[in-house]
């Protein structure tokens, strides 16, 4: 009959028993349809979300608060750099997280921009990838125009200008630039999110920075930058002692900071004067 014919055209019903969702009290996820409203409500609240730990991003611009959208995210991580007489140690942990979840354990936050210049960044990895790509491209242009690679102080200034260029919609990146200056001495430059920078003897940025900085202060007593005549900020420690210190501070930060982890492995040597330490979690 016609009815049977129609029935045969319909797709077969699933054999599993249908469950009454309302009776079981399960809420259906209407995620994507209500996302804009949720984001708007979140933006009008203090910014604290129950699904992620409170982070402290830079304040949004007028354009962003008009849209009521939150465009940043804190992926955590800690970066440390120590400058010595003829070396510079730059270290970063390798965990990438969102809220209380771990996205990957093997993400490097370090980028080698020039042969004597290395940047380590923590914060929002989307912005960090864009920033590092930007800097690498500018360095390549410099190479082609000047027939030499960029020096660390030059890269430091470039990074500062790049960050300030986006003063009113910043890169959510907390950077530490490390390398060797033109005399071969170690240099470390430490930045905030909008490009204010200073050459120091050591620096820590990121979620574990408040845990690590006092220990570095204590171990690498650095002279005040206000002293006249200006004293060298580089540490007199040897390279292996500095590497041990970095491993120790990462171990301490790991104990108390959920976004920082390390499991010290053997250190791979990439360059005679520059040492990368990637400290992956296992």
């Amino acid at each position, binding site marked *: 009959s016609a009815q049977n014919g129609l029935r045969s055209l319909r797709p077969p019903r699933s054999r599993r028993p249908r469950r009454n969702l309302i009776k079981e009290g399960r809420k259906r996820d209407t995620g994507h349809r209500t996302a804009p409203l949720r984001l708007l409500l979140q933006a009008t609240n203090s910014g604290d979300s129950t699904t992620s730990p409170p982070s402290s991003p830079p304040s949004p611009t007028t354009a962003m608060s008009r849209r009521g959208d939150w465009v940043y995210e804190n992926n955590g991580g800690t970066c440390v750099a120590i400058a010595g007489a003829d070396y510079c140690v730059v270290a970063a942990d390798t965990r990438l997280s969102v809220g209380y979840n771990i996205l990957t354990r093997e993400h490097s936050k370090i980028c080698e921009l020039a042969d004597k210049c290395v940047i380590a960044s923590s914060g929002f990895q989307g912005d960090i990838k864009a920033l590092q790509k930007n800097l690498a491209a500018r360095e390549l242009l410099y190479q082609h125009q000047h027939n030499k690679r960029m020096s660390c102080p030059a890269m430091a200034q470039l990074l500062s200008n790049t960050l300030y260029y986006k003063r009113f919609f910043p890169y959510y990146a907390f950077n530490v630039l490390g390398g060797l200056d033109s005399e071969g001495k170690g240099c470390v430059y430490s930045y905030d999110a909008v490009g204010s920078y200073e050459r120091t003897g050591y620096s820590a940025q990121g979620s574990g920075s*408040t845990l690590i*900085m*006092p*220990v570095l*202060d204590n171990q690498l007593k650095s002279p005040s930058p206000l002293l006249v005549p200006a004293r060298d900020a580089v540490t007199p420690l040897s390279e292996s002692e500095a590497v041990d210190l970095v491993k120790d*501070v990462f171990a*301490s*930060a790991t104990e108390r900071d959920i976004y920082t982890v390390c499991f010290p492995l053997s250190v791979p040597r990439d360059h005679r004067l520059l040492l990368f330490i990637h400290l992956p979690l296992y």
Partner: protein
Amino acid sequence: MVGKNCFAIASDRRLGVQLQTVATDFQRVFKIHGKLYIGLSGLATDAQTLYQRLAFKHKLYQLREERDMKPETFASLVSALLYEKRFGPYFCQPIIAGLGEKDQPFICTMDCIGAKELAKDFVVSGTASESLYGACESMYKPDMEPEELFETISQALLSSVDRDCLSGWGGYVLIVTPTEVQERVLKGRMD
């Protein structure tokens, strides 16, 4: 911080109202009895009131029981006292340190509504607590003698408060062993 049959409790000396420093000799560590001390960080008025109430309760306990309170018991007392004010709390984070039975060191800290956290090595509280966690974690090792413990806790305290603008103006360290109590005042960065 816990050492070998001894403990040390330390605090900074600044009292301030946001950016204004009001006093540079403020006492934050209070004695309950010879082997029990409590450090109270946070709102100064609540610290003083809380200490007065606890001293009162301990004196009554001494009269009734004819002995001093054990640190574990005292910690429970503080926790209960804070939780009584669950919906209008004292804005203080106490640190309790004492020598218990057989002179075993006991330390614990609480949040402002009385959640106890016992530790075997060190406890921290206050505005510079993150820095203190990092410094103590790096510098602590178990079973330190009183002299070494004093060095360690002083260095950890001074390095950490130097990174916090609301703490500082020197330090005050108490080392308590079964036989004696040493008080020392540290001179750090006065700013």
